[in-house]
């Protein structure tokens, strides 16, 4: 998911817990935000902690869902991502 030319201004990883309710909500919310505000200039990696919990542990992720923004600023947001303003702030858009 993300820009086709390989360089993206926004790089993100979303740690989800299968198809749990909050995880699904979080995926929906970040997808909407990317589509609305990032115009394809982004990468979003989805990591299911049930399948790859080692990655979560390596990143010191304790709760799912959790969004980790790598660029432009390192930021971690926990929960179902229903606070759009908070996410846009973290992305530096607002």
């Amino acid at each position, binding site marked *: 998911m993300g820009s086709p030319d390989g360089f993206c201004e926004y790089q993100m990883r979303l*740690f989800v817990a299968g198809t*749990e*309710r909050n*995880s699904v909500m979080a995926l929906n919310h970040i997808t909407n935000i990317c589509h609305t505000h990032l115009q394809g200039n982004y990468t979003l990696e989805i990591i299911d902690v049930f399948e790859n919990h080692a990655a979560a542990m390596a990143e010191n992720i*304790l*709760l799912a*869902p959790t969004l980790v923004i790598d660029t432009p600023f390192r930021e971690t947001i*926990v929960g179902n991502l229903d606070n759009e303003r908070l996410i846009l702030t973290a992305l530096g858009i607002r």
Partner: protein
Amino acid sequence: MNPAKPTYRDLEKQLAHAHKLLQAIEQGQIDVIVGDDRHMQLLGLKQTIDMLRENERNFRALADANLIGIGFGDSSGNITYINDEMLRMTGYSRADILAGRINWETCLAPEKRPEEGNWSERLVNQEVISVREWAFLRPDGGRTPVLGAASRITSPDGLHVIIALDLTRMRQAETLTWKSNQRLRMAANSLDIGIFEWNLTKDTAFWENDQMYRIFGRSRKLPPLRYSDFLEQAVDFRDKNAFARAFSNAQQPGNGFAFTCRIHRPDKSAVSWVEITGKFYQNDSDLSLCMIGIAKDISAQKQHEQTIEEINDLLEQRVRDRTAKIQKQTERMRELANKLGQVEQKERNRLAAILHDHIQPLVVGARMHLWDIYRKNDLDAIHVTAHKIEGILEESLAEMRSLTVDLSPAAILNDGLAGGANWLVTYMKKKFDFTLKSRIDDIIDPISENTCFLIFQCTKELLFNVVKHSGEKQAGLSIERTKDQKIKIIVSDNGNGFDPDAFVETQDYTTSLGLFSIEERLKDIGGRLKIASAPGQGTTVTLTAPAEKSDEASPTVEPGYNRRAEDPPVIQVRNSKDSIGILIVDDHKLLREGLVGLLEMEPDITVLGEAADADTAIALAQTLEPDVVIMDVNLGKTSGMDATRQILFKKPHIKVIALSMHYDKKTINAMYHAGASVFLNKTVPSDELIAKMRDCLSGG
């Protein structure tokens, strides 16, 4: 190497992060906590909780649907949840339940408590109380029957669930069904028919009511007879095969069973007749072949039918006998009619012979003497010839009187049946030298004319039969009037006797009118004839006839026979006070005219008047005051005797001279007893009549 000591800024960031994590957790935005195994355990727990929640939702939906009563309780017996249906069944309010005032044990009816009580203990010791019937005791004292079960949910805290299904409607339906069955059973027991059901497949029988046992004479303690036993033990051997055939035919589709047979009861009492009807059907539950039907004891009906049959046979026999008798009687009647015709012709011939041989020659002789008178001038010779004529006429009168008596005795006309009976006594003695010992009731008269003559004729014929057949010279004759106003005549003799039945069969009606004739004639007027006789033991014949009293429609025979009314009497004025005044009373006009002509030749005699009946005579005697009344004896309703008595009662100085054709002693005595001065026969010579008249006026 020791990790670097976190700065305040680091701590502040970590705190903020932790705060965010807590906030997310508090807000329920976290699905899992990621760790070595913990997040997997949490995942399993969550899935379990979700399943429980879904189950709970389903259970709640079930409870809220209120199809069945659902409640929860804890180990203390308190009710922790109850749905509306269960609440309705208990009859309490939700507030009562939730306040802990009511628990399951108080909800149960007392009669159920010993069994179902102490729920907590039971549920601790066993997980399930299986389905059974309970009854909730409602606050109003009523019961709600339920089908309930209970189950422990968690152990050992004793949380349990109770499920109950309201049986009220089912119980009501059962009660109605039971009552209906009871009524049906009572009705079945009150019927006079037995009701049964045979299961042929299982060879079992059900006798549904008492009457079935009564009909077959079996106690209810004994099992009802199965088909095979029934056929062997109960059905009479004469009907067994036919019964089996009919039973077999009835098993064909569409056929019914109806059979009447004789049965035997275990007590060996008389054979009874039973009518059995039924219909086969297939039992829905086990597809066995059954017959349901009724049995009826028709012994009484059969008995009646047999009685009716016997009566019919008897009646038919009687009808045949009666028809044969009627045919025989018809034949006899025909013979009788022929005989009557012959007798009538014979009687005509006899009368013609008497007229021709006896009276006609006399009259011819008299006429020839009259012609002789015309030719003679000598008065003496005329007198002689006149005397001859008178003699001839007297002889003629005697013949005619004899004939009259033979046809109809004057005694009947004068004295009714009693007179006729007395005449018969005399006649039988005179004619056949046959003695009749008579006993004649004084009060047998008056009776109707027809009856009188018929009885007289029958009695006369009976007596002729006695003279002819008995071989005796005497017989008894009894005539009486019975209390029921019938005339009863008994003619008895000690002679030869006969067999009445054989006599009736063999009697030759062509030669005699016989007893049959008498019997038939008596029947015609409502009388009857009874014969008691046996060969060598004499004969007693009893003759009974209704004695009608005198009325206008039925003329009666009394002394003084009413012959006819004629012209009104002639009344003349007396010529001289010195002459003898005469009143002539006679119902024959010619006789009156002859007497008038005879008397008026006498210069000192004046005929003052004539009367044709007694009433006129009595009236004229009052007004004309004659010296002499010449009175005919037979005048009609009021006889000459009565007229004489009444005339002399008012005018005792009048002399009455009685004239009659009948010169019997009884009549003569009766007239003298009535007051007549002289009794003369109508055949008396005219000069003697005149001489007697003068004698009685002069006191001779």
